[in-house]
C-alpha cells in the first residue's frame, strides 16, 4: 500500500478511544523502548500493514491496522499461536459484557 494518488486531505481533530491508546501502548512495550525485551520492530509493523490487502486496508481505521499487524507479527514470531488467539477470542466473546453489547 502507499504511493497511490489520493483525494484532498482534510485535517480534522478527533478523540482517541481507550482501546486505541492501549494498542499504541502495546506497540511501545513490544518495541522494547521502555526497557523490556524487544519483541518486534516498527519495520515489521509496516510490513504487516502493507500485507493487509487493499480492500481490508481501506475499511480499517488507523489503529485497527496496527492491532492487525501486531497480531500477525506475534504469530510470525511464534510468541502466540493462531490456535491460542482463536481460543482467546472465543473466550472474550463468551464474556457476559460482550453478550450484552450484541
Amino acid at each position: 500500500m502507499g504511493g497511490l494518488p489520493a483525494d484532498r486531505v482534510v485535517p480534522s481533530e478527533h478523540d482517541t478511544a481507550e482501546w486505541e491508546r492501549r494498542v499504541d501502548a502495546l506497540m511501545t512495550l513490544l518495541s522494547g523502548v521502555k526497557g523490556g525485551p524487544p519483541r518486534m520492530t516498527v519495520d515489521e509493523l509496516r510490513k504487516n500493514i502493507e500485507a493487509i490487502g487493499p480492500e481490508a486496508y481501506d475499511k480499517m481505521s488507523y489503529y485497527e491496522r496496527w492491532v492487525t499487524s501486531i497480531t500477525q507479527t506475534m504469530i510470525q514470531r511464534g510468541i502466540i499461536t493462531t490456535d491460542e488467539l482463536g481460543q482467546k477470542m472465543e473466550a472474550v466473546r463468551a464474556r457476559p459484557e460482550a453478550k450484552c453489547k450484541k
Partner: protein
Amino acid sequence: MQEVAGSAGGQYPTSYRAVARRFAPGERVRVRATAPLGHIRTPFYIRGHVGVIERYCGAFPNPEELAQMRDGLPAQPLYRVRFLQTEVWPDYAGEANDTIDIEIFQHWLEGLKGGADETSPPPSDPPRARP
C-alpha cells in the same frame, strides 16, 4: 566494514557494523528504478529520479531485513537526498527551484559523478505502486 556512530540516541544502539560510505554531500545520485517484493522504505514515486546528496545521516540496520525478523546488519549508510520538485512531478505547479528531501539508504542509490548518463532523463515509465 567499519564501525559507524549512528545519530539515534536513547536506549537504541548508537553504532553498528556498517558497509562503507560511497557518497559525499554534493554528489549526484540516481535512485534505483526497481520494484522487488518485501518491505521497502524507498518511496515508489522517487525511484528512477536524480538528486543530490544533501547530508549523511548515519548508518542504520537495513529496514528491509528488520521487517523480516533479521538483524539488518551490516548497517546501511543513510543519506538525505535533495530533488527538484519539477524533476519529480511533471505537472508541478510551484516554484521552479522548489525541492523535496528524502532519506534514502545507500543500496538504493547509484553514483552519477562524471558518468555519461548524468544528463539522461529518468525512465519514462517509473515503477508504480501496486494497487
